């Protein structure tokens, strides 16, 4: 078994411009580039050599330079994000993305939940104002990169939707069904697209 210390000792650190090998021996992976049939590093990081999968058309291993410094999280299609509703309109609601999976975002990303993406059934009868309110915390899936301004988000799954909401009285509401939440102070119910949180 390889220990962590051995791994560290074997790790090769690369900086931009370093020659990694011949382009005939390796496929240039992420963090590298090819110039005159030679593969060079383009990033600072640790060198990795990834063997080709058996049966692949190209049997050369690919060479990669992976960064050790983590960037802020960026939403990708398919990710589950946590967002805060900013504005609710008749056909869509806009939200500010705060977390991607478990990681908080560093920059500002906006998302929109369109009317047809709020729930899975009866999608043409959705009332946006009866699904979200400004200030609600929602869990949503990233559908696509959307337009230039915002990501397209979807809450059309049982486990997606509003996870936390404030009532008019100012208390955190308790979910009572998949369409309603109740205020513990006034016992008033408000309509929401409620997420089924495990």
């Amino acid at each position: 078994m390889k220990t962590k210390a051995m791994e560290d000792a074997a790790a090769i650190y690369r900086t931009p411009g370093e020659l990694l090998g011949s382009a005939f021996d390796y496929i240039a992976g992420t963090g590298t580039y090819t110039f005159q049939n030679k593969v060079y590093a383009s990033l600072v990081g640790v060198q990795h050599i990834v063997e080709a999968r058996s049966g692949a058309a190209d049997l050369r291993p690919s060479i990669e330079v992976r960064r050790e410094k983590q960037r802020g999280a960026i939403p990708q299609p398919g990710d589950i994000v946590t967002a805060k509703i900013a504005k609710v309109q008749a056909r869509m609601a806009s939200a500010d993305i705060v977390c991607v999976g478990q990681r908080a975002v560093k920059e500002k990303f906006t998302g929109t939940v369109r009317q047809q993406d709020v729930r899975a059934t009866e999608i043409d009868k959705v009332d946006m104002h009866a699904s979200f309110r400004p200030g609600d915390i929602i869990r949503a899936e990233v559908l696509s990169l959307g337009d230039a301004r915002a990501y397209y988000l979807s809450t059309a799954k049982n486990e997606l939707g509003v996870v936390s909401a404030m009532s008019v009285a100012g208390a955190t509401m308790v979910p009572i069904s998949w369409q309603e939440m109740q205020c513990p102070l006034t016992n008033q119910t408000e309509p929401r697209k409620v997420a089924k949180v495990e």
Partner: protein
Amino acid sequence: MEYISPEGLRLDGRRPMEMRQLHAELGVIAKADGSATFEMGNTKVVAAVYGPREVQNRSQQLQEQALVRCEYSMATFSTGERRKRGKGDRRSTEISLVIRQTMESAILTHLLPRSQIDIFVQVLQADGGTRSACINAAALALADAGIPMRDLVASCAAGFLNNTPLLDLNYTEDSGGGPDVTVGVFPKLDKISLLQMDSKLPIDLFEKVLELATEGAKATAEYMRERLSENTRQLVSARGLLRF
């Protein structure tokens, strides 16, 4: 003025082909995507890189490549005489342009279309060779930000005073009125990306001075690589501790 003593030593005690002490730190500004400080003797500069990020001004967006912007400024306390320096004066606009062009030639801009990279460089202490120090700091900050580059860019200056080529001029030598050659090189590709000279020099001497500056830049690059590898090693070990 006598710039080299009879013993062959310069005003600050260096030999003609000796560089000043180098020192670099990475990740000095938490909010920036990449940052670095770079010291060459008493010259100290800090560089911060933001991006690749969305283009702020849509009309400047480039469809095929990244937009690189650079801003150079000098701190009021950077020189002996305290003076308010704007960032819009002739000298800083010119240096901003020089840094931007040098960095743009190193960055693989075609990999980051429709995005913007901002480089901010500030001189904290000026003692000659600020141009070189700024380029070195900016290159380190870009590497720290994880922006793909063809090669590191390293820069160094050389001059010619008292019939001797001198490497890495300090402020007094710089004000000596002799020629000052600044080069920016791609050390591994062995190419020059920047070459500037003020005043005149015969061609045979120029070649000597240029070669000296290039050698200096390559030595600087070697130091920069060392620092980057050291930084990666620290990040790897920090992550190793988190894994358990």
